[in-house]
């Protein structure tokens, strides 16, 4: 008995699992003014940001309390003059009891975290193991969305009970994400890996298309929700589908921050398949709409995006190719015009050990954005190319 108590105490006081990542980039870009410089460029780094850059400096911590509770913190610095030099991307408390009879398990998370949508951002820190820059869909999710609330998930662990399948239902209830949609409407989709931090901002001072905005705010005092389904066939195929609706009141407006409660809802579906010979294929599709209702107007921006990624792993080497296409429709005469575009991304990743990762990525994005003539006096069409050499060093028991 006393041994059991001592064991429980030892587990309760277990040292936290932590990880430190340092990711430096050598960038060559001919991109138009990026979001951090207030323009309508579609890449993370524009031509003035070529050279040696900080990709991300990250510190993550997971601390267990007893057997079923754990606290997860993920803090990052991005080196681009955000409100806080270091800020959180995720912070949540998780309740994860053991599976009970028949292989069912219930999980609960509360705090700030990513909804289970992306099939690409599967590494620690919500990074992609395939490319430095995320697809247009997942760049947008990292830019504008975070669940600040609670999420429950019921798993059926079928592969532990002789079945070929695992199934999970997820439901989330959240607030403090009412401005989500403003970036899509005012700038459109982009491709990068800059995740918006919980107390940080998007946009830039003196930027006409997107002045600085804090995205994690409550404006209309209405909770949003999402409901998702995940199915797995062994560890080979994963399918995720999710309905998201922030139930924003498009007429609600916060004068202090000059921000509407954007009414954003979408459906997303994705598939990831892996072979035993090192091939991975991922496809994701997103279809939704965001809207505001200033005065007597009702302005809406339907949006759609998809990508397909093919990756081949050979030992410590991985080569990936991705095609993105994205569209934002708009009939607005007040800025926030339509955007249509596509992108090709090719990346080579070399991981000599669990500490080091080297990535060479080439990304070319072509898009037609009617905001360019409206806001910055440029032709609507633009083709931008960015080449990055990334060197990442990871340290800590959780690094792998």
């Amino acid at each position, binding site marked *: 008995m006393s041994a059991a108590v001592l064991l429980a105490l030892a587990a309760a006081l277990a040292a936290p699992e932590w990880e430190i990542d340092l990711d430096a980039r050598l960038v060559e870009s001919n991109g138009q003014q990026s979001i951090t410089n207030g323009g309508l460029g579609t890449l993370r780094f524009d031509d003035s940001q070529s050279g040696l850059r900080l990709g991300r400096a990250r510190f993550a911590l997971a601390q267990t309390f007893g057997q079923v509770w754990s606290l997860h913190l993920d803090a990052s610095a991005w080196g681009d003059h955000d409100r806080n030099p270091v800020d959180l991307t995720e912070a949540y408390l998780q309740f994860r009891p053991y599976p009970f009879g028949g292989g069912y398990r219930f999980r609960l998370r509360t705090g700030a975290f990513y909804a289970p949508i992306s099939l690409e951002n599967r590494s620690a820190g919500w990074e992609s193991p395939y490319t430095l820059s995320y697809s247009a869909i997942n760049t947008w999710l990292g830019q504008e969305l975070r669940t600040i609330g609670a999420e429950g998930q019921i798993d059926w662990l079928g592969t532990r009970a002789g079945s070929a399948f695992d199934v999970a239902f997820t439901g989330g209830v959240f607030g403090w994400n009412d401005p989500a949609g403003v970036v899509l409407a005012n700038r459109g989709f982009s491709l990068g890996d800059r995740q918006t931090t919980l107390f940080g901002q998007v946009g830039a001072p003196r930027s006409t298309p997107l002045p600085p905005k804090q995205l994690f705010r409550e404006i209309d005092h209405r909770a949003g929700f999402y409901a998702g389904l995940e199915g797995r066939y062994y*560890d080979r195929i994963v399918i995720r589908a999710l309905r998201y609706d922030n139930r924003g009141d498009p007429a609600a407006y916060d004068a202090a921050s000059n921000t509407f409660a954007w009414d954003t809802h979408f459906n997303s579906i994705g598939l990831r398949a*892996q072979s035993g010979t090192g091939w991975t294929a991922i496809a994701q599709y997103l279809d939704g709409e965001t809207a505001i209702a200033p005065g007597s107007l009702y302005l809406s921006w339907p949006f759609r995006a998809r990508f397909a990624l093919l990756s081949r792993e050979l030992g410590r080497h991985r080569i990936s190719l991705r095609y993105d296409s994205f569209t934002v429709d708009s009939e607005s005469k007040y800025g926030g015009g339509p955007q249509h575009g596509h992108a090709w991304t090719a990346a080579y990743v070399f991981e000599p050990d669990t500490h080091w990762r080297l990535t060479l990525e080439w990304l070319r994005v072509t898009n037609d954005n009617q905001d360019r003539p409206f806001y910055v006096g440029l032709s609507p069409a633009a083709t931008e190319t960015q080449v990055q050499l990334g060197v990442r060093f990871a340290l800590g028991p*959780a690094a792998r």
Partner: protein
Amino acid sequence: MKGMQLLRGVASGFFILFGLLASAAGWGATLVVAVHTANGKPLAGAVVTLRSPGGADHPGVPVNAVMDQINRTFVPDLLVIPVGSSVAFPNSDSVSHQIYSFSPAHRFQLPLYRGKPYPPVNFDQPGLITLGCNIHDSMLAYVLVTDAPYFGRTDATGTWSVDVPRGTYKINVWQPRMEETLQKELTIEGERSDLTLRLTHALKPAPLEGRHSWDAY
């Protein structure tokens, strides 16, 4: 418990001794079992068990086995042990694991741990136990607890051989990737008996290697 194990051990010892004597006296035989997949390739790692049809067998001698956890995978990912054996589950990773089984043959949990804080787990009931880690869902392993007097696993050429007294046996073949249960009754009369079993269904996919198991999101 200990007395029971000892008794079983002694009984099995006699049984094996009897087998050896029988073999020397010309009552023994060598059985060679070859297992092939549906497309004719040798199936390595398949578990073969031999029982008397009457079921009056003595199980094998209990052992103390080890299943480690390295790079967020169980090593090995399949153990075959006689009923009454114990398995230690050390964790060699720098992160904690939380092991569970909800298989009817033996439900148990090892609360969050690193290193080797727990005594070995005893397996007193025959059956298949599927193991998972509650933190890392990609971790999957099996412990097959058998009461068969003779058992083993096929090698890289898909074969396993055993010396047994001549007689009639029920032969079972199982592997985690098999869709079917293979069973065959065989009477061994000569000095050597060869049995080739071929699966009729394709194998389930093999688990992906540990390096693929990013499951942070």
